């Protein structure tokens, strides 16, 4: 049941409703202006504060660097050594260590055959020059060479008698 009247005009009622956004707009504008003024006042002082902090920190870093200079020098040296070691390791990886193979190949000769020269090229082609007391010893040597695990296709390319009881030979093999 309607118990009260309100004779306010509809236009006035609507205007009152519009006035709220207007009021809110005014408040927003005031807040914005205050914010701008606040930023204008406080931002330079804040920047100055941050700059002075940065300077202080830089000075501290310098002090620390001075205090730990020896440590840094050792660290640099370690780094250089590590670098060199790494380079050495990389170079080693590129080259095949042939010394063991050469020892083995020489050991096969068993005194009857003298190895004069062994050459291994980049393609792992092995050229062997040697001298034996007999052709049989040379042949046995080459057969023993062929039995080695790391050698294959051993064949002689040259064999000649130099003097009595002295034969020179050249052989070629391939390292696997």
């Amino acid at each position, binding site marked *: 049941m*309607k*118990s*009260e*009247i309100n*004779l*306010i005009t509809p236009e*006035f009622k609507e205007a*009152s409703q519009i006035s709220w956004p207007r009021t809110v707009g005014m408040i927003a504008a005031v807040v914005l202006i205050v914010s701008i003024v606040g930023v204008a006042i406080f931002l330079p002082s804040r920047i100055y504060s941050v700059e002075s902090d940065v300077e202080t920190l830089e000075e501290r870093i310098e002090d620390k660097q001075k205090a730990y200079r020896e440590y840094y020098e050792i660290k640099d040296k370690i780094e250089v050594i590590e670098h060199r070691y790494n380079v050495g390791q990389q170079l080693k990886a590129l080259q095949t260590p042939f010394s063991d193979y050469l020892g083995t190949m020489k050991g096969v000769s068993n005194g009857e055959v003298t190895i004069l020269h062994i050459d291994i090229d980049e393609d792992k082609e092995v050229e062997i020059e040697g001298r034996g007391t007999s052709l049989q010893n040379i042949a046995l040597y080459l057969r023993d060479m062929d039995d080695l695990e790391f050698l294959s296709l051993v064949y002689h390319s040259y064999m000649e008698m130099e003097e009595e009881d002295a034969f020179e030979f050249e052989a070629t093999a391939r390292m696997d």
Partner: protein
Amino acid sequence: MSQKEIEGAIRFEAEKFAAAPLESYIVDYVSLGQKEVEGQKANEVVLVMVNRRMVEDYLKPFTYAGYRPQVVEIAPFPLERLVKQMSPHYVEQNFTGVILNIGAENSTLLVLENGRYGFSRNLNVGSRHFWKALTDSRGGFGEEDEEEPWESEYTPFFADMKTFFEKKEFQLGMEYRDGVFDPEAVQEVALDLSFQLRRSLDYYLYKMQREDVDLQKVYLCGEIAGIKGMEDFLAEELSMEVKLLNPLYLFADQQGEGKIENGEILAVATGLAYRGWKA
């Protein structure tokens, strides 16, 4: 009838009373509940129509001052609300009787039936008519009192009234200080007020067929309601009990301590302020 149906009917009825297009009025209504008329139940409503321009003119001073009024009412409703708030300690519970608020230009007569709106009417007598009668007949008052001269009938009303209340020099229908005023002039206006009151009450009782309503008491409020002698004068003229309705008596205790005088001036304003409060 649903509220929507009532609103449609109100608009239809309002068009009958409108002298101009209905759009030039602000129309509203109050439901008084159901009533039996010729054996049938009917919704009783109070239709209120106010010229739109008049409302706009009232609103202008407030908007110019930067305020946005939320409610516009006519005086009877705030007075009804005030009586409800003052019941039962200061006004009888479910009061049936008359409230008379003397305004500046005119006065509001409100008849309450069991505490609810029954009838209201504007009377063409206000405090201004009293002051005009006084100033017209003041004789040499202005010349005698140089400190507070009565410059003209346009002297600010409240300043005049303050002077009166402070000096307590005016008693309606009685002797005046040094015979400065002509008592007949004021009495004429007071008689006019009582005459209009009687006529309106007769209209209510007989034309509106409310002979069964027993009107025994008048609560008096408004701008010059507190003038000494006004209660007695109206009581004698209307043959009814007349009592001041001072809303600020609410601040007084049971023994009347702390009561604020002249609060009857604020009756309508207090009633407006009570809008939205539960009685």
